[in-house]
C-alpha cells in the first residue's frame, strides 16, 4: 500500500504547486514516516491503522504569511519516545537509522507528540511560490 500513498501524494504535492524535487522530498518524508510507524509503533505489522491528514495552511515567512502543506500522521501503536528518535551519525556507515534523517532533511517542520493514546507526527513543507513580476 505504500506505493499507492506515494503516487497519490506526489499528485497532491504537484497540484499544490511544489516543484518536482520538492514533490519527491515530500513523498520520501511521508513514506519514511509510514515505514517508521509500521516498524516501530506497530512492531512490523503493516495492517495497523494509520490516519493521515493533509491540509494547506498559512505559516509565517520573512515577516509575512506563506502557504505550506501540513501532514499529520496518527497511529495507535506503542509509545514512541521522541528522545530516542534521533537517527544516527551519517559517518557511521551501516544500515538503519536513515529514515528519520531523510524526513528531517526533506521537511521544514517535524514534530512528534503522544496524545489520547496515539502517536502523532506533524510534518510541514513550505510552498516556495514565485512572487509576481520576479522572474519567469
Amino acid at each position, binding site marked *: 500500500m*505504500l*506505493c499507492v500513498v*506515494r503516487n497519490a501524494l506526489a499528485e497532491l504535492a504537484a497540484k499544490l504547486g511544489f516543484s518536482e*524535487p520538492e514533490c*519527491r522530498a515530500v*513523498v*520520501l518524508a511521508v*513514506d*519514511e514516516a509510514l*515505514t517508521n510507524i*509500521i*516498524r516501530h509503533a506497530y512492531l512490523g505489522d*503493516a495492517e495497523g491503522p494509520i490516519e493521515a491528514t493533509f491540509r494547506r495552511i498559512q505559516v509565517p515567512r520573512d515577516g509575512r504569511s506563506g502557504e505550506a502543506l501540513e501532514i499529520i500522521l496518527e497511529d495507535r501503536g506503542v509509545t514512541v519516545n521522541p528522545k530516542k528518535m534521533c537517527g544516527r551519525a*551519517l*559517518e557511521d*556507515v*551501516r*544500515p*538503519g537509522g*536513515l*529514515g528519520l*534523517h*531523510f524526513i528531517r*532533511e*526533506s521537511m521544514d517542520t517535524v514534530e512528534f507528540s503522544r496524545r489520547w493514546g496515539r502517536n502523532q507526527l506533524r510534518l510541514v513543507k513550505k510552498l516556495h511560490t514565485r512572487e509576481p513580476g520576479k522572474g519567469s
Partner: protein
Amino acid sequence: MKIAARHLDKITIFDISGDIDLATSPELRKALLRELRELKMPRVVLNLGAVRYIDSSGVASLVEGLKASRDVGSRLILFGLNRTVREVLQLSKLVKIFEIYENEAQSVAP
C-alpha cells in the same frame, strides 16, 4: 520491484526495476548477500536505471551489500542512477562510499 540476473564471465549483473521500499528491499538484500557471501562472485553490478523509487530501507540493503562485498573481497558496483535514486543517495551522504559508474560498459570493464 523486479530483479533479473545476468552473468558475464565472473560478473553478476542485476537489472532492477520498480520501487525499492520496505516491502521489497528484503528481496534485494537477499539477492545481494547470496551472490556475495554464498556464491562469492568477485563483482556484482547493479543496474538501477529502471528504479522508480528507493527509500532508506533500500539504501540500507545497498549498504549491507557493500559491507558484504568488503568482507569477502568483492566489488559492488552501481550504474544507471536516475535523478530520484541519486537524490536519495546524496541525501543519505553515503553516495561517496559506493563505486558508481555511468553505464554498464564502465561497470564491467577489467
